[in-house]
């Protein structure tokens, strides 16, 4: 069982109408790996993440998460998945505490534990003092931390992160990176898209690059962001600043 990849795709294709976005992607991600998924806008990296999380149906090909077929058996893996996106996925009219309590109810966490788990999750992302303030009053970085607390609340072992650094300033990025490293050290499997290459060598063990809907590069990241940027430019034909 431990040998089997946690996330596996075979011949995965997705077309929006006549427009192909993914054209046969094969990926294996073993348990506990931190994988960065790179690619230009429209290369299909968000789509790949959405398919793995069961939000988008593939046109062709197979996806399994934890051995279950996606999307047909998605209900068996929902509890194992935590998703963070560049959208905050929180309700601005509710307090941080209420947002997490709502999530706890959706995931059917035991009512007796909810209060403590919510507070523990808030503490972990450094928002405990602000538990009873409306999410609307939060900065972008705080909203993102709340979003991470929401994703971790039901203790998933797979984290899917779609551009989590978007809109965050330097200190907020540092906080986020520290959290992600902590999750990785705890044995979580992480799959993260980003186009801010400077974070990649600090975090990921493995770099995948999507170009024109196919997997064009699969290797350990260069330890130097500049070298990674050169690799990226070579593979995709586009330059990006590290």
């Amino acid at each position: 069982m431990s040998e089997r990849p946690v996330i596996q795709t075979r011949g995965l294709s997705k077309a929006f109408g006549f427009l192909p976005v993914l054209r046969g992607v094969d990926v294996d991600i073993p348990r506990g790996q931190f994988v960065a998924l790179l690619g230009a806008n429209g290369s299909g990296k968000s789509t790949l993440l959405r398919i793995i999380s069961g939000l988008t149906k593939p046109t062709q090909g197979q996806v399994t998460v934890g051995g279950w077929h996606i999307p047909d058996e998605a209900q068996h893996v929902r509890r194992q998945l935590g998703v963070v996106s560049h959208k905050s996925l929180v309700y601005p009219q509710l307090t941080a505490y209420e947002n997490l309590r709502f999530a706890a109810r959706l995931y059917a966490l035991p009512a007796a534990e909810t209060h403590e788990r919510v507070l523990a999750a808030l503490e972990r992302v450094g928002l405990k003092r602000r538990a009873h303030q409306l999410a609307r009053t939060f900065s972008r970085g705080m909203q993102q931390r709340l979003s991470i607390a929401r994703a971790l609340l039901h203790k998933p072992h797979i984290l899917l992160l779609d551009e989590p650094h978007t809109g965050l300033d330097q200190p907020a990025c540092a906080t986020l990176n520290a959290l992600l490293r902590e999750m990785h050290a705890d044995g979580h499997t992480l799959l993260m898209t980003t186009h801010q290459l400077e974070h990649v060598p600090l975090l990921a063990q493995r770099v995948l690059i999507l170009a024109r809907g196919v997997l064009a590069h699969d290797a350990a990241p260069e330890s130097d962001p500049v070298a990674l940027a050169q690799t990226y430019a070579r593979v995709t034909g586009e330059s990006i600043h590290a």
Partner: protein
Amino acid sequence: MTAASPSVAAASAPNHLGRLKALTAVTAVAFLLGLGMALAYAGTDAIQGNVQRLFYFHMGAFFGAFVAFACTVVGGVQYLRTRNVKWDTFALAGVEVGVVLSFINLATGSIWARPIWNTWWTWDPRLTSAAVMVLVYIAYLMVRSGIENRDTRHRFAAVYGILAFSSVVFTLVVIRIRPDTIHPAVIGTGAQDAQGGFAMNSSMTTTLLLNMAVWVFLLTPTLMWWRIRLQNYADRVTQRKIAYMEQG
């Protein structure tokens, strides 16, 4: 390369032009026969006179539209089950043909009503519901045109097409349940307030049956088939455009 999507299969399916032309010829002949019978063979109604002859087309158009809208439901259900684009094309053809037939139904009814009810239009439950039926399907076309993503458009159109059929059923049922309509029911018992009903003799019944058969079994399928063919060509053009842009 690109995985073959169902849409590719649909667009490159054999197009059976010969059969379609034959069907069209049969439909044209049968339609002319029905027209001739309605104008010359069927007896003249003693009270209403020649204007009653419109009714053969009025009924034919309604049931043609009914069948076309039912095709939309079938197409929608099948699309959601199989995700094959050909079913969406089928559903779309049903709506467009159904809307045209419904307009014929309303227009003939209106022309008939002018001498018989002394008005072109009245807000009777039956007439209102028939008008609503047309509006629902025009809304269907508007919802479709508002969605750029093809898959989304097909899914939403399928759902809306199924919901929209409630207005068709409502139009059929309201005349039986509601006693306060003035619309006559020629088949079965109608409302007590109905005005303009008439009894049919055998030449009238024959003419009605033939015309109904022509509109339901020939005219509606023929029009839908042409519409499906047109859509398949349009899809192929779109596909070639995308393939061309991909290369360039």
